[in-house]
């Protein structure tokens, strides 16, 4: 398997509590993984490790062929150019306009003004952000802010997208449209996607591989069909699939 993400025996302690308990998980290049689980399952912690925002207490995290803990500043900067992220709770800069937020990943990459303008136009059109370019994030609805975050995550054409809280701020139609857009990116250039959510019913039809996390432990890893079969005999999986928060 040509792996995009390899997580091996990862433990993460937060405030003296074991929040990730020996998680081992792999994602192949071009594959889609839906990471589901109730609130507090450890989904956000795992995505933060994949994005190099936190270091694990133990275990290794390899993303796009690089072990993150061993990367120097320059290599980390280059690595970030291959990864896009939509973070739970939002991460747009309040003091910048939508357009300036969108262009952040292209700053310092050597992109010319014309290239940046072209990329911004495309992102604005794809994510239906026309007319919002000059707005500050505070003036946008939650759904609009999420679309801006997604546009920012995709503007530098990453090969891996990590999306924490897939349905946050998006209604069923918004989720459908967004997944359609990501499918296009997948078809065009094999985008690898890792998305998390705690409302699986709306998403299991997306065809992605599913991993179920609960209280820091990986309960299941397989196809949606296999998950339904497994859930028939496992109460904790049925609990997660019922969408309990």
């Amino acid at each position, binding site marked *: 398997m040509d792996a995009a993400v390899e997580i091996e025996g990862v433990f993460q302690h*937060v405030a003296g509590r074991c929040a990730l308990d020996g998680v081992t998980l792999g994602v192949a290049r071009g594959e889609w993984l839906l990471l589901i689980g109730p609130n507090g399952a450890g989904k956000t912690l795992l995505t*933060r490790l994949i*994005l*190099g*925002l*936190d*270091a694990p207490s133990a275990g290794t995290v390899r993303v796009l062929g690089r072990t*993150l*803990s061993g*990367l*120097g*500043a*320059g*290599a*980390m*900067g280059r*690595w*970030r*150019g291959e*990864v*896009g*992220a939509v*973070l739970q*709770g*939002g*991460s*747009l*800069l*309040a003091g910048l306009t939508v357009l300036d*937020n969108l262009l*952040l*990943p292209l*700053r*310092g*990459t050597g992109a010319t003004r014309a290239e940046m303008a072209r990329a911004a136009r495309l992102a604005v059109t794809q994510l239906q952000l026309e007319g919002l370019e000059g707005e500050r994030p505070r003036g946008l609805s939650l759904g609009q802010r999420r679309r801006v975050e997604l546009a*920012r*995550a995709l503007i530098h054409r990453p090969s891996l997208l990590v999306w924490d809280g897939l349905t946050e701020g998006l209604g069923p139609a918004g989720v459908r449209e967004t997944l359609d857009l990501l499918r296009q990116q997948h078809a065009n250039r094999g985008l690898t996607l890792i998305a998390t959510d705690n409302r699986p019913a709306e998403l299991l039809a997306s065809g992605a591989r599913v991993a179920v996390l609960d209280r820091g432990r990986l309960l299941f890893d397989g196809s949606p069909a296999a998950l339904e079969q497994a859930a028939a005999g496992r109460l904790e999986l049925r609990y997660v699939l019922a969408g309990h928060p």
Partner: protein
Amino acid sequence: MRGSYAEGTQPLCRGPSGWLEELGLAWLTLVSCLGLYLRILGGRDHLDVPAFAAALRQTGLSVLPATTLVALALGLILASQAESVFEDLDLPRLPVLAIGVKVVLELVPILVGILVAGRAGVALAVRQAGLTVSGEMDGLIVSGIDPVRFTLGPVLLAMLLMSFALTVWIGLTTCGALATWLWARVGVPPALFVEALQQSVDLADLFEGLAKPLIFAVAIALIASVCGLAAGRDPDGLGRAATRTVIGAVTAILLTDLVFVLLR
């Protein structure tokens, strides 16, 4: 800090290992900031001008009335003390004036440091902590942007410029108030004050008096930056970062001044 792994979005440990971590974070921050300045000088990056202008306003202009008042008060207090010495002890005026000037030269950088720490230092720490709490710091990092470019980079430069300017301003205002009071109340001629200045302050003293605020500014900026980064994602961290910055910066200023005194 660009690209460094796990860039301080989790609170650091307490105790000696926490201090070591914070020292390491301060060092990385300083290196990152110097790297930014070198890139700007080399034309490979640019200064965030709006952030720099805001920092200049915050560090200098917004504290100018308070600093002027403090300088006047300091000058008048010292003058009043000198006046009572002249009246009670009948000492020669030149040595007393020289001691007064020395005291001004020692106190002014400390005062500037404390004022800058209380205004710009706290603002920087709260901004850093606020960026972390709101997720904006993460947004910068995942976008491949060095947070120093938006936070410490422009603020440290503004602090250096304004600390220097405020030291000159407060020094002149304090000496002016001191000399004016003594001239008006005791009849000490301005020429005698100038002579005391010339005799008590040599080039090394002047250099030290002007260099200290710059060193204090670097210490304040690093302490504020580390306290802000180490506050974690907890909203209570904002208040904690502000308090730790003031205490840390004032302690650092006084200890650094003591080192200068001991090295003379």
